[in-house]
């Protein structure tokens, strides 16, 4: 089975090894935001493994995660579901504004007192 670009990207940016998951569900047992979420921490891990990233990207769950990392903290296999949620969220954000910032448009935007740091962080957020 071919691995999609999205799956590769998520695995690379999260650093999570989804094959280590043994489906115990402790992450979802610990999640304080569980009832708010459509997909739950263990499903994030499973869907990445099964290459169904699209489902996760389109789910409001990625915005409901509190980022408390308790799922990763409790994980007995060091998989780290929160790292995956974070990676999917970052991918979704970048997608929304894929071409928000174009290099040629930048000079027109810069004012004298624009801090350089702002530009760097904008690039990090809005560019691949």
């Amino acid at each position, binding site marked *: 089975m071919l691995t999609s670009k999205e799956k590769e990207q998520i695995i690379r940016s999260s650093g999570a090894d989804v094959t*280590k998951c*043994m*489906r*115990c*569900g*402790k*992450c*979802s*047992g*610990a*999640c304080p935001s*569980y*009832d708010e979420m459509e997909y*739950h921490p*263990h*499903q994030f891990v499973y869907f990445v493994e099964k290459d169904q990233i699209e489902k996760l990207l389109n789910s409001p769950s990625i915005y409901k995660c509190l980022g408390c990392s*308790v799922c990763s903290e*409790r*994980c*007995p*296999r*060091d998989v780290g579901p929160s790292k995956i949620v974070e990676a999917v969220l970052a991918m979704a954000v970048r997608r929304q504004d894929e071409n928000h910032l174009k290099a040629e448009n930048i000079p027109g935007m810069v004012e004298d007192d624009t801090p350089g740091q702002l530009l760097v962080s904008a690039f990090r957020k809005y560019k691949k």
Partner: protein
Amino acid sequence: MQKIGVFVCHCGTNIAGTVDVKAVAEALGKEPGVVFSTEYQYMCSEAGQNLIKDAIKNYGLTGIVVCSCSPRMHEATFRKTAAAAGLNSYMVEIANIREQCSWIHKDVKVATEKAIVLGRTAIAKVALNTPLTASETPVVKRALVIGGGIAGIQTALDIADAGYEVDLVEKEPTIGGKMAQIDKTFPTLDCAACILTPKMVDCAQNEKIHIYAYSEVESVKGFVGNFNVTIKKKARFVDETKCTGCGICTEKCPMKKTPNLFNLGLDNRSAIYIPFAQAIPKIATIDADYCNMLKNGKCGVCSKVCAAGAIDYKQQDQYIEQQYGAIVVATGFNPIKLDNYSEFAYNESPDVVTSLELERLMNAAGPNGGTLLRPSDKTHPHTIVFVQCVGSRDTTDCGKPYCSKICCMYTAKHAMLIRDKYPDTEVYVFYMDVRTPGKNFDEFYRRAVEDYGVHYIKGMVGKVMPQPDGKLLVRGSDLLTDEQLKIEADMVVLAAAIEPDKTARPLATMLTASMDTNDFFTEAHPKLRPVESPTAGIFLSGVCQGPKDIPETVAQASAAAAKVIGLLAKPALKSNPCTAHSDENLCNGCSSCERVCPYGAISYVDKEFRMPDRTTKVRRVASVNPAVCQGCGACTVACPSGAMDLSGFSNKQIMAEVDAICR
């Protein structure tokens, strides 16, 4: 000049599939000293061995090289073959062209070249071999079993049954181990004590078995057939020969607030105690940490009430030295400490207990006389949540990476027993996987679900929160309904992972027996020699080798006993003649070899030497005890003056091998 024969084995296609065996035989036939070279399909077969025997006789061979599998596999076979044809069996060398060549290479050309080099190396070595003769050492007809749980008990009984003396060493005041603490056993639900205590009594009454309770192994020296062991008998402060086990001292002792370790600290006992009613030996022991008399010299009640006059506050640790032919390790296990799992609130609430603690809570001899009550307020629990795999299958640093194997079954047992005795109690079991391989095991688990209505939930508990009203709020996932459950429980039972007893690691060092990264003893072969340690004369029984339940433990215990009996039945053991020896003229007495010797085989003697000027001089030189030396070769490498050498693996031979490879 040696007359060397070379025999190249095809091993079916194992070797011949990747190595051009004909080319190897032909190339090796041209090596200096080689007078005969051939190949054959299976050299280890009878026909193959006859081929070797005939060649030895017909060509008057003085040394042979067999290019075949690892020497661990068939060195002994070919040595016997040579001996049968009248050739000294240490004139045989094996070139491993299977494991180290054909199995790891794909390219025929490369593999054939390497096989030729390996063969050439063996030829260079065998040319320098000298005939060696194995000497014989007697076997002490006595076995030592370390650990008095069900594993040690069964092993001791079986060895004694064959007529050999057995010493059973147990660090606790009584034998019985973990099985004595268990209430009922799966899958038959018979009472553990009812089947264990008769075996304990058998041990005590068997005149071949000597029980050293409240004792530990202090040191181990020697080797297979002749181990020299020091046993430390810890002071009980009670004279074993006088105590009748009447128990009056335990009733009268004023120090009633001593934690009862047999009940895992769930209740208290007196400072002088007998762990449980059926203890063997049934002798009182004083807990020195709590006894007022031993701490500050004020009390002495037990001494006054003891009709037998057995109390001896001045008793000291005793050391006993004994010789053994074989040693069996049966050191057992403990549940892990749960300090790393604060999410389960084990240290916060007394109503969160481990499964072993639940055994005591449900036991008729336990703190509540067999009625299951919450430890906090002694009320009847109506909702109980079991959590499986607490610390098992955990690859973070918190727990253990392995499956503890017994938890699925004992949890099903607990759930079933509770539902049977208290039908008004709701029982939930959170599981990752239910693993029940074994005779009647899966049927047992299904009975818990189908006949007893235990709620099995595929998921894991994420958090246990003690509530102000004394309840425990359990939050866990149900992966199949895809919801998060919040259960108000009265008790939570944690199936804690099991780990080898802490005494196992220092013991392994004493025995030079190898262990894995989890501190389980390693077996000599995972499939074919499961009850022997790679160290000769050391045998393994029970959980010290890996997680197992009672039926498996008993089976392994008897297997270990059979191996011990096989060893003790031998009139003498052939010792390895490949031992170290030192050239006294070169030895400078530096002690390097003595320091590296893992077997204590090297000592130093003062010896008189004649000097060139006709004077005599006393020099300190190394001397090797060949009966103790195992031929590891550490000393030959450590020796700075090249005085130490190993028969069968001399420095000259090793250098010849290196030269042959580099040629």
